[in-house]
């Protein structure tokens, strides 16, 4: 019997304080609602499916940031953190080692999940960071000022590399005229950004340039990729979800219009967020009308509809929660610790898969070896009288001999290298 497939949850959060709702994707039952939570778009992140993190929209007029952590099976907030500024966009890396936050003043924050340490913070954009995406360790950030920047986190995290780099960012793209609303990355170092300027743009992260720009009939608030990478979905303000080809069909010689293959339409209000399942068969959309729709991408029909709240749904996610033994969560720090005082906490998580099994069967293997040896030395008759020790000695001697040879060899090479070096200079 194959184990049952892991339970998949559809999570949704709203900008109104209606909590994070979780529905079972298969049964459609509401599992749990984590409260309180009121999130801006792109501010809900599942940390390697181990727990849930949500940056909170600041109360009206307030200028303080809050990030909530929730355990999967407890409705209340597990840990509250208070970053230096309100976090607009929140993202976790694939292994759940880091949380990256984009602030409303254009700063980026990189926290280590295990310790809560703020590893680095830096000014990234002139205005608020609206969305984030990761490709390996390239961070792509999109801002309200319309710029998209690509950061190499290895450089960002290392002081010396930062000094050596010409620009703090790897690339900076300014082709978007209006705020960037969402970014998705895919295989082959390709990123797609959507913007209020009614375009989606496809970027090559390795070449650092725009590959295409696709105009849409309305502002696009959200993009999601089909895992097979041949189409992506763009959720528009007009309530339609445009199915868009990543490339252009060669057979049609029309303009870029042709890259929009179709639209999923359920007469809803603006589509604010999208999530695609790993098998590409299910697409989940959140809408301003407070509903969450589950689409079958093959039939392009709505298969389920969840009512979240009256307020607009801002975030949807599909997750398969891993209920593992979590070490206690640490709140995210507000400021970087003074240089070198606190070591970034590298941890090894328990991962059974890297366990080395102990093999049985050793006696027979041992015996086979032994009997082989005996046969080589011509029978066992002497072995148990006095021969035993000679046998051992032989093995020992062999060992010493091999070591000796190894050292000789090494010596030889050292000399060879030493000899070569002057000879190459003065032939």
């Amino acid at each position, binding site marked *: 019997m194959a184990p049952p497939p892991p339970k998949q949850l559809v999570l949704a959060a709203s900008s109104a304080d209606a909590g994070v709702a979780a529905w079972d994707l298969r049964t459609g039952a509401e599992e749990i609602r984590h409260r309180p939570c009121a999130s801006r778009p792109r501010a809900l992140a599942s940390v390697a499916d181990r727990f849930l993190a949500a940056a909170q929209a600041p109360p009206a007029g307030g200028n303080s940031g809050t990030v909530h952590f929730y355990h999967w099976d407890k409705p209340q907030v597990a840990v509250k953190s208070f970053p230096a500024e309100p976090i607009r966009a929140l993202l976790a890396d694939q292994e759940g080692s880091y949380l990256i936050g984009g602030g409303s003043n254009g700063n980026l924050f990189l926290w280590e999940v295990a310790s809560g340490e703020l590893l680095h913070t830096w000014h990234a954009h002139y205005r608020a960071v609206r969305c984030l995406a990761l490709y390996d360790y390239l961070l792509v950030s999109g801002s309200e000022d319309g710029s998209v920047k690509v950061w190499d986190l*290895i450089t960002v995290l290392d002081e010396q590399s930062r000094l050596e780099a010409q620009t703090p960012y790897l690339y900076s793209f300014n082709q978007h005229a209006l705020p960037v609303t969402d970014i998705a990355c895919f295989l082959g170092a390709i990123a797609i950004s959507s913007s209020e300027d009614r375009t989606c743009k496809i970027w090559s992260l*390795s070449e650092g340039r725009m590959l295409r720009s696709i105009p849409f009939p309305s502002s696009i608030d959200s993009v999601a990729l089909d895992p097979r990478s041949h189409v992506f979905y763009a959720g528009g303000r007009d309530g339609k979800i445009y199915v868009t080809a990543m490339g252009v069909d060669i057979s049609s010689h029309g303009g870029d219009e042709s890259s929009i293959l179709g639209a999923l339409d359920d007469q809803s209000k603006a589509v604010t967020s999208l999530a695609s399942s790993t098998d590409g068969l299910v697409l989940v959309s959140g809408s301003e009308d407070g509903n969450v729709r589950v689409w079958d991408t093959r039939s392009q029909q709505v298969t389920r509809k969840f009512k979240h709240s009256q307020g607009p749904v801002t975030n949807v996610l599909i997750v398969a929660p891993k209920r593992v033994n979590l070490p206690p969560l640490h709140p995210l720090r507000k400021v970087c610790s003074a240089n070198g005082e606190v070591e970034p906490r590298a941890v090894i998580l328990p991962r059974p898969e890297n366990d080395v099994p102990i093999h049985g069967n050793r006696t027979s293997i041992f015996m086979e070896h032994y009997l082989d040896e005996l046969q080589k030395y011509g029978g066992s008759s002497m072995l148990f009288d006095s021969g035993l020790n000679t046998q051992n000695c032989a093995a020992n001697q062999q060992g010493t001999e091999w070591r000796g040879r190894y050292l000789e060899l090494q010596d030889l090479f*050292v000399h060879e290298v030493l000899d070569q070096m002057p000879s190459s200079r003065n032939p």
Partner: protein
Amino acid sequence: MAGASGGFLAGVNDPWLKPRLLRAVVAERLPQPGGAELPPVELASVLGAVRTHGLLTEGLPDRAPEDPKLAEAWRTAVDSWVERVVALVESDSAYSCWLGTCFLGVTFQECSNERFAESYSNWYEKILSNLQEPSCLQLVTVISCTSLSDLFVRLAKFLNLKKEASAFAGRVVEPVLRLLNENGLVADEAIDLLRTVIKLYPSSVNRHYNKVESAIVTKVMSTEVNIKPSEKFARTLALLPSIRVSEDSWSLMIRRILIVVNNLLNDAFVGLEEEKNGHDIMLLLVPPGADPPPTLGDQVRPGANVHITKKFRVCTVPTISALMHCCSVMLTSYYPVQVNVPMRALVALIRRVLLVDGSLHKKLFPSTTSLHQELICFELPSLHSTFLDLLNATIKGMRSQLLPHGASIIRLVTEYFKIAKLPTLRTKAYSILQLLLTSMGIGTSLHLLEATVSNAIADLNDDGGSDMTIISTNPSKVTNESSSKIYSKKRKQEPQVQNSFVSGSEKAAISPRKRKGSSVQIASKGMTPETTGDARISTPLSVKITALETLEILLNVGGSLWTDHWRPEVDLLLINVAMSACDMGGSYKQKPSTFGGASILDLQLASLKALLASFLSSPYARPPYLAKGIELFTKGKLEIGTKLADFCSRALLALDVLTHPRALSLEKAVPVGSGLNYSARGKTVFGGGTCQISAYRDQPQAMEVEDMYDDWLASTKDDEPAETPMNGSAAGTSKAGTMLADGSQLNPIAEDPKINSLRITAAAQDAPASSKSDVTMVDTAAGEIVKPNTVDNSSSSNAVSAPVYTTNSDSQKHVIPSIPEQRRADEVSHLENRSPAVDAPSSKLGTSDEVSDVPVAALGFHQAPEGRSTSFAELFGSESGVDSESDDSVPDIVDGDPDSD
């Protein structure tokens, strides 16, 4: 049933066979207790019979009808086997006891679950009494340890017996600790048993924790342990934290180990590094104000009584390597709770060791003697190797958490490559590059690009590029002679170009076509005379193979990154290495390789893998050299039954998408700018090999020319041959040749470059018209080369583009009025340094432009500062060699050309 009463069996699968066989074995072949010794062959056959036929399993086939008689017969047979074996164990005779224990061990694995559960405690006592008896023969002790660990492994599968098993395990510990102090073989098996026990029943060892730890640490730090067993001890030491599972016990253990190693290094590296290095690491391990952890094995004083000259070799280094091995194991194996790793101390320690290159530090210490330095240099390779392993394990264990330390590790590895000259160390350094690339992805390749490419090129280049193809075959001799003939001929014709320096260097570059490796090395090492032919030092195969693997991974991870700077060079290198590796198969096979058993076959496989990666990750829709590559894969596929053939057929499958592009929508994501050049070139037959690379430099216009791209695609579909000129420059020459000659020469694959050039020349005579168009193509290509180069690096552009101008200005000056005067001056000065072999034919034959262009196109992209001169010389040499061949084979053209005077 037939077999029941001793009659005939139904066949080999008749279940009755087994009890009967077993009865026969027990009755006739097993000795009685105290009986005479059996010859080993006989024992081996008994063992074989028991295991192959499963005589002890008592397992009836699933669908066989229930047969109580059979089950009963089998049960009694096994009973009698067990009875005899136990009797043997209990015997006074050492031999019988040994034999009995052996077969009892076999019984542990083979017998049925019921039987095992029933009698394991009985068996355990029997063996344990063997162990506890101090007078027991060593051989018996050894086999007792082995069979006990088999017993525990089997017992661990019975979850209901956990409590008893744990108690048994606890009782074993003390006798085993005593055995640890015995000589090699016994201690070896004893430590294995101890490891099994700790792994399976950690809690049972809890009581003895301190004793176990000090016994193991003493062993690890003692002098007489050999390398291999001490690794076993180290692995057991790594298991100790799992006896008392807590976050702290793990971190404490690793910190204690690092402190010991750091202190050992303090003594060793006196005078060879900055004095405060060790102190800094201590600060990381023991923060100021904190209590230092108890010293690991404080009662042990390694090597106290060993003479100073031996001490370092016999104790310090083996101890360090065993302890570091222990750390590696701890970092990479499973631990039940989340633990903290002292990453900074770890990285600092690795850095400390790897950056010691044996040179003296500025400040001399009185204790530093030349003897001390010599001793350390002697052991440095093995120390480095140990710490490279540790670095490897760190990267594996830390996974994404490496990120904050990523940059410093990358710097360390890059620096280390300058120190690593020994093959084993270089191989390990490469494997670290590979790990870094795969673990951290495209971001790392930004940082590692330069180091990887320059080192790999240096390692792979030493035996040349395409000219390697005809190594040590007869034709090469002819080539050699002919090229020197040509050379002397040219000397007559163009005396003004001659000076002694040029002649020396060019000889080295042109003539020794059979001694590729040496020629290139000579060229790179400052133009030594060509007498070094046989004393060539080439990079060992193992290093080349890892270099190729590293390039493959780099291409996979970041193949499309900053392609202008390195791809052309790397692509060219890979096709050349692959071609030479495949062609040389025969010549290399005779001599066995010296390192690690890596053979030329492995090199072939690695080079083809890298080549495939270069094709698949190519930023261009049609990678250069594709045709040549497909040829190699097709050839490789014929080596049926080898890994090579397996891989080649997979490679061809993977390339299928490239060669016959489907109308996939993602197609658009490739740089559309290339379309322009393709469609333009599709019409000029000759342009194929030459201006391809340069064409791609012009990418900013990418987005505007989508239609052109479509055109090209369409034309490809209709007209397959149109794509041939796009395949590669070096390879492309041969293609162009076949295209031109006439329709009958459709075989696109020419084995010998000589033939290719022949065809080209012949074709040139036939098709003067196409040569015209070619010249204009070259011209535009030259223009394109100049533009970026002047921006990037003017000095290199001069050197690089000079040949192009020369070829053009000699014969076709009127075609290129746009070239500034100053550049012309440059090219004149370059003329003096240039091979006559290149410009002489080009001035004679318009068509040969395209041939001499090849190095230019390839060289235009040498941006990596290191390793450039090598490849320049090599390319130059090789390509000019092609020219000279063509001249030689068609002498009438040379003579009849008026322009050369």
